[in-house]
C-alpha cells in the first residue's frame, strides 16, 4: 500500500480543487465541470462563455506549471503506449459527452449538491474504471 504523506497532499490538493470550483460557481455562476469547460473552450470560441472557459484552462495549465517548477520532481507517470492513449482518450471523450460530466462535474459538483443523477454517474464511472484496471492488470496481465 502506498501510504506516506500522500493522503495529506490529496486532502490539501482536494480542498484547493473544491475552493476553485466554489469560486467559479459563486463568482461566475458556472459549474466547474472540466469536460464541459474543455469542449466549450474549443467549440464556443466566439462566445464569452467559451472565452471564460479557455481562460480557466490556460490558468490551470499555468498553475500546474508553477507547481511543477516549485515542487521538483513532480511525477506524471503515464503509459507510452500509443494504442492505449488513443483508445483511452476517445472513450473518455465520447463517454463524458454522453454523460454530460466527469469526475469534476458529476463527482465533485454534483455529489456535493446531493444529486442522484450525479451519484448514479459517479458510481458507474468509478466502478467501470476499477473493472477496467482489474481486467487490464490482473486478467490480461499488462502493466501500461
Amino acid at each position, binding site marked *: *500500500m*502506498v501510504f506516506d504523506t*500522500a493522503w495529506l*497532499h490529496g*486532502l*490539501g*490538493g482536494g*480542498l484547493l*480543487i*473544491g475552493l476553485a*470550483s466554489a469560486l467559479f*460557481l*459563486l463568482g461566475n*455562476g*458556472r*459549474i466547474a*465541470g*472540466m*469536460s464541459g*469547460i*474543455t469542449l466549450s473552450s474549443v467549440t464556443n470560441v466566439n*462566445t464569452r*462563455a467559451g472565452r*471564460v472557459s479557455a*481562460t*480557466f484552462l490556460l*490558468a*490551470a*495549465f499555468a*498553475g*500546474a506549471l*508553477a507547481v511543477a517548477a516549485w515542487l521538483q520532481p513532480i511525477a*506524471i*507517470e*503515464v503509459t507510452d503506449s500509443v494504442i*492505449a492513449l*488513443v*483508445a*483511452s*482518450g*476517445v*472513450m*473518455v471523450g*465520447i*463517454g463524458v*459527452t454522453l*454523460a*454530460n460530466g*466527469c469526475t469534476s462535474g458529476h463527482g*465533485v459538483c454534483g455529489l*456535493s*449538491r446531493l444529486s442522484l*443523477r450525479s451519484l*448514479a454517474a*459517479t458510481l458507474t*464511472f468509478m466502478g*467501470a*474504471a476499477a473493472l*477496467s484496471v*482489474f481486467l487490464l492488470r490482473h486478467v490480461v496481465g499488462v502493466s501500461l
Partner: protein
Amino acid sequence: MRYLIALVSGAVFGVGMMVSGMANPARVIGFFDVAGAWDPTLAFVMAGAMLPMAFAWVLRARVKTSLVGDALPGPALQTIDLRLFGGSALFGLGWGVAGICPGAVVPALSVGGWPVALFAGAMLVGMLIARIVLNKIGGVSAAHAVELNASR
C-alpha cells in the same frame, strides 16, 4: 471580472490537481487497482474537494445571482437514463486504461509530454464526434439543453 475569476479559480484548480496527485495517472490507476497495491489517495482528494463545494451549494441557496451578476445554476437534473449510464461506463472504462480524466488533462500537460498531448487530442476528437452525433440525432433533449446552458 469574469475573466479574473476564471483566472484565479483555474490557477487554484491546476495547483490542486498537481498537489493532490490527481494529475498523476499512476496514482489514479493505483486507486482503482483494488486487487493490487491499493492507493487510497484519491478518496482524500474527493473528500477534500467536496467540502468547500458543499458550502458553496448552501451559500448558493441564499444568494440571488453570482458575484458578476449572472444567473446561478438551477436545480440539478434528475434524468437517470441509459445515456447517463452508458456514457459514464464508457468514460470509466477508458479512464482505467490511461488514468487521465478530463480535469487532469490540462494540468498534466504541464510536464506530461507527448503521451498526455496525444491523449488530449484523442479525447477532443471523441468529444467532438459525440457532440456532432448527438446534435444530428437530436440528442440534446430539453433536459440536457438545460444542463448545458447551466454550465455555460
